[in-house]
């Protein structure tokens, strides 16, 4: 029996996706279904003076129009936040109400004010045009850097200012002292721009209340069915949780944006009970742009102190982090526990102090987006490293080697305790950089660069060495940091009487390939073919509980929960096998799909044990029938993947156009179950990070209008913008989970953005260019060149 773990098995789910047989929320049609269109604010900030739906209600086929007042009259709550970060002075996090539909004021373009429900979508859209909303436009604050100004318009009238909370980490005194002795200090100031997540499947939600059994079903495009059920039933609609089912089966990408509980989910669920019919809402793409939680939005100033040999002495900085108009589900965690705690990077920095001000602006909410905080942390660290290297005239690779944390395996050596709370599990950083340098042939690069410059061609090289935190995390730890949920995972492994296996996982696949990776693990564990394993996810009625998929946690946490159930099945199976073989349990070994009595040819296959468990005629006394175990796995720690990425770019001096000519990545994601899926995750992630560096950006004008609200303006990276990726790996297993896996979903995005910007700055450094704002569009690069030439 050949094994499948570690092999590049093609994704089993792709057949149905590629042949159009996926079942996304918008594909679902229920009997008697109605369609909702949400009327959204065209203003960033305005008072709602009146809403007149009378003309809309006269249209044939319109079932109902509801406003925020109707929801308020039913006593429904606002959309809650799942993470609490209190202020430095001890004050509770300021958590203004996030209404399902606004009643008094709108606070960003796209904020919902009313919903029109009709027999079909066309009628609903026609009627929506007739709803008269009378707004009194008010001044808005759209930029994070302006939010705390004394005269800034307030997003929430009941708050003293636009601060949601402030937060700090590290040791200020020690860090200031380190800076006081520094030989060199490198400082950078930049804006880590807002990004629109752009999942290919727009969000969609169907609320279905069945009066007969007083039961609610919400079909929704989510990464996180159980959390949605918990938040919506317990906090928003006050429904008994056992009377609510949330289904998020096939989901077409999320990148974080579908972790969160959104107003539309509560809206269709609530309204379905009102009209006693199912209601479907699907975002139009232009709605996705202004309602899917955005990513990043950090205004940052940061410094790194060095001694004369280039050893890092300290890091200190400050970020104003945009929350948008409301606190989305995980928003408070992103600039704090997912960002501030990563500022050690993979360096021995002995002193760190960092402060974050999280602010409200009249903009779409900001929350976790692929990498969530770690890309922002890595961006500032790696931009600092390349900049410092240039300023101190030390080779950027050399500067990193000088500062890497020495190897530790987390088994014979302890984990590495950082200055910023985390303890890294295992790491061996230098080999990834050595390997990447060799692949890209760094030793010859500077010569080539010099020759190219002589011919008027600007080529540059950029580095990023990074560590990130995945598999979020031990529940007790995240709880102490403000999470209002645990972060474990569950799994049922159910061996059917014929020896086929159904796995019910709380992880959620929305592009990651769980149906393949998880099946590989199960197949090898039982010595059965992959075809004999079915992976089920995304339905609160089938899965015991789940914390969903994000933070690259599925394999490390969800996979480990499956391993726990597998172990329990093997343990029970051995008892049954021992009985059937009339042997001692201790004398059995399980291999190649059968239990064998050591040193004999007496064996019994997995399938026969399964059948016996369900047809227990000849069965161990006192043992329960059945072969079916449920487990919860709460990890001991985060996992800490790492790697080294190097890119080469060519800058067209005359136009400022940037071409990425080579991209080399060496990643260590721990043990690899499916190298093809890991590579695919890395490819997608790298492309997304290059997107931020070169193309993507959601900017608001002063009145709070989104300037890039369609694909005619918002530039996604495309295949023809990218080079062939040269990807390879090293393997340093995670010491604390049964799979040794660390996570691969976000590493590419985390690493690639600074790699590219560093490379562009390197290409132009001889002209005196030292910093560039993202995205590095041709116009920006060209004007940086002009400015440098003018100096």
């Amino acid at each position: 029996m050949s094994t499948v773990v570690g092999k590049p098995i093609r994704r089993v789910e792709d057949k149905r996706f590629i042949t159009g047989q996926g079942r996304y929320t918008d594909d679902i049609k229920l009997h008697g279904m109605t369609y909702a269109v949400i009327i959204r604010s065209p203003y960033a900030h305005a008072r709602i003076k009146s809403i007149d739906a009378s003309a809309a209600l006269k249209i044939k086929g319109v079932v109902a129009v509801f406003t925020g007042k109707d929801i308020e009259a039913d006593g429904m709550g606002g959309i809650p936040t799942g993470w609490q970060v209190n202020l430095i002075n001890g004050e509770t996090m300021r958590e203004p109400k996030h209404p399902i539909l606004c009643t008094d004021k709108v606070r960003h373009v796209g904020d919902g004010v009313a919903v029109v429900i009709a027999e079909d979508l066309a009628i609903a859209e026609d009627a929506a045009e007739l709803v008269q909303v009378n707004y009194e436009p008010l001044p808005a604050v759209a930029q994070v850097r302006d939010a705390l100004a004394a005269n800034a318009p307030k997003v929430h009238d009941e708050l003293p200012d636009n601060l949601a909370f402030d937060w700090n980490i590290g040791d200020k005194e020690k860090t200031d002292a380190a800076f006081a002795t520094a030989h060199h200090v490198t400082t950078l100031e930049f804006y880590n721009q807002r990004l629109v997540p752009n999942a290919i499947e727009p969000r969609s939600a169907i609320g279905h209340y069945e009066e007969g059994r007083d039961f609610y079903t919400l079909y929704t495009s989510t990464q996180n069915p159980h959390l949605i059920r918990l938040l919506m039933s317990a906090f928003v609609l006050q429904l008994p949780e056992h009377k609510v089912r949330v289904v998020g089966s096939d989901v077409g990408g999320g990148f974080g944006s579908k972790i969160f509980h959104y107003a539309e989910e509560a809206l269709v669920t609530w309204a379905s009970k009102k009209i006693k019919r199912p209601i479907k809402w699907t975002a139009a793409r232009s709605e996705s742009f202004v309602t899917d939680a955005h990513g990043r939005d950090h205004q940052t100033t940061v410094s790194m102190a060095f001694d004369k040999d280039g050893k890092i002495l300290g890091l200190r900085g400050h970020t104003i982090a945009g929350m948008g108009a409301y606190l989305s589900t995980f928003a408070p965690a992103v600039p704090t526990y997912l960002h501030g705690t990563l500022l050690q990077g993979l360096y021995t920095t002995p002193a760190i102090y960092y402060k974050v001000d999280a602010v409200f602006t009249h903009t779409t909410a900001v929350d976790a987006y692929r990498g969530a905080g770690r890309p922002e942390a890595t961006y500032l660290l790696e931009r600092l490293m390349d900049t410092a290297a240039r300023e101190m005239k030390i080779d950027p690779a050399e500067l990193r080697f000088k500062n890497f944390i020495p190897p530790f395996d987390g088994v014979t050596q302890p984990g590495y305790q950082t200055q910023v709370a985390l303890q890294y599990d295992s790491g061996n950083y230098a080999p990834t950089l050595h390997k990447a340098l060799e692949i890209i042939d760094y030793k010859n690069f500077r010569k080539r660069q010099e020759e190219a410059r002589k011919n008027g061609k600007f080529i540059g090289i950029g580095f990023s060495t990074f560590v990130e935190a995945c598999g979020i995390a031990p529940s007790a730890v995240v709880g102490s940091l403000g999470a209002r949920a645990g972060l474990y995972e569950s799994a049922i492994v159910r061996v059917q009487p014929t020896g086929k296996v159904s796995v019910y996982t709380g992880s959620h696949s929305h592009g990651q390939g769980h149906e393949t990776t998880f099946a590989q693990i199960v197949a090898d564990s039982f010595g059965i073919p992959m075809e004999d394993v079915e992976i089920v996810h995304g339905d609160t009625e089938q899965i015991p509980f789940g914390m969903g998929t994000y933070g690259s946690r599925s394999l490390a946490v969800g996979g480990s929960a499956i391993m726990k159930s597998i172990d329990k099945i093997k343990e029970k199976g051995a008892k049954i096998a021992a009985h059937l073989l009339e042997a001692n349990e201790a004398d059995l070994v399980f291999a190649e799909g059968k239990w064998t009595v050591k040193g004999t040819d007496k064996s019994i296959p997995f399938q026969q044990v399964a059948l016996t468990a369900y047809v227990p005629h000849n069965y161990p006394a006192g043992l329960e029938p059945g072969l079916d175990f449920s487990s919860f796995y709460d990890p001991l720690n985060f996992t800490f993947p790492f790697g080294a990425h190097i890119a080469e770019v060519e800058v067209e001096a005359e136009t400022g156009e940037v071409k990425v000519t080579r991209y080399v990545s060496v990643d260590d994601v721990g043990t690899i179950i499916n190298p093809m899926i890991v590579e695919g995750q890395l490819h997608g992630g790298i492309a997304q990070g290059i997107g931020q560096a070169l193309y993507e950006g959601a900017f608001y004008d002063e009145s709070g209008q989104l300037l890039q609200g369609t694909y005619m303006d918002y530039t996604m990276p495309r295949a023809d913008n990218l080079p062939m990726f040269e990807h390879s790996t090293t393997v340093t297993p995670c010491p604390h989970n049964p799979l040794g896996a660390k996570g691969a979903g976000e590493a590419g995005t985390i690493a690639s953005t600074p790699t590219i910007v560093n490379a562009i700055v390197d290409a132009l450094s001889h002209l005196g260019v030292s910093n560039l704002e993202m995205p590095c569009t041709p116009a920006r690069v060209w004007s940086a060149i002009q400015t440098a030439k003018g100096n």
Partner: protein
Amino acid sequence: MLPASFDYHRATSVADALGMLGSLGDEAKILAGGHSLIPALKLRLSKPAHLIDLNAIPELRSITRQNGHIVVGAMATHTAVQTSDIVRSAVPFIADLAGSIGDASVRNRGTIGGVIAHADPRADYPAALLAADATVVLTSKSGSRNVKADDFFVDMFTTALAEGELVTEIHFPALAKGTGASYQKFSHPASRYAIVGCAARVTVEGGVCKNVRVAFTGLTEKAFRDNGVESALEGKPANEATIQAAALLAAKSIEVTGDSFADEAYRRHIATVQARKALLAAVAAATK
């Protein structure tokens, strides 16, 4: 998002379409490739009561050569123009331009007639029509009239097209020996529309530039011919130095509109770059 409701009419001949246009009047809109119209309908920026679809009129798709002109039917798709041997042999830069529009699905449905009738200030064809000295044929119930490209593009989204008229053909003079042309486009990376596009046509006689025509798209409310560049090169030796000097005059007398992706200064600079590239390529083609 769905468009507001409308009645759909499929015309099967030009006469049929003109009849519908006559009876339905300004309540009706022509549907060609739909790549500008359908998004406007879906966003409800446009709410016509009737759509008259020209896609079932084969005569409007033809591409032929007549009396030294390449005659392209209004409904010729960008792909059809890109891959036409007739176009490629007589006005190769038009075939190249068609291949640079949007992406494959835009090219497979979008039409030359739709582009010029729509007159988007970022569209590619208008600059090329100006540089090529093309003629647009407009047809109404009372017959056809020929309008020079110079007179066709009036303003942003506004052309010489009158009520009750269709764009039916575009005539490009075939490039004579000694004449070369080129279209050089700097694309927006998202839409791939032109940030700046420059079309140039030059005749080189005895090493001297003649009949220079240079037109830009993307810089202002409509595509325009740049007399400054044209006259700077007219009668001058066809070499890099004269071309570079002429190109630097690009858009000098024009008010350039910038946006968050490319501000005015950048667009002006790119105009000089694209002008140089287009002129160099045109001269190279003329002297080949």
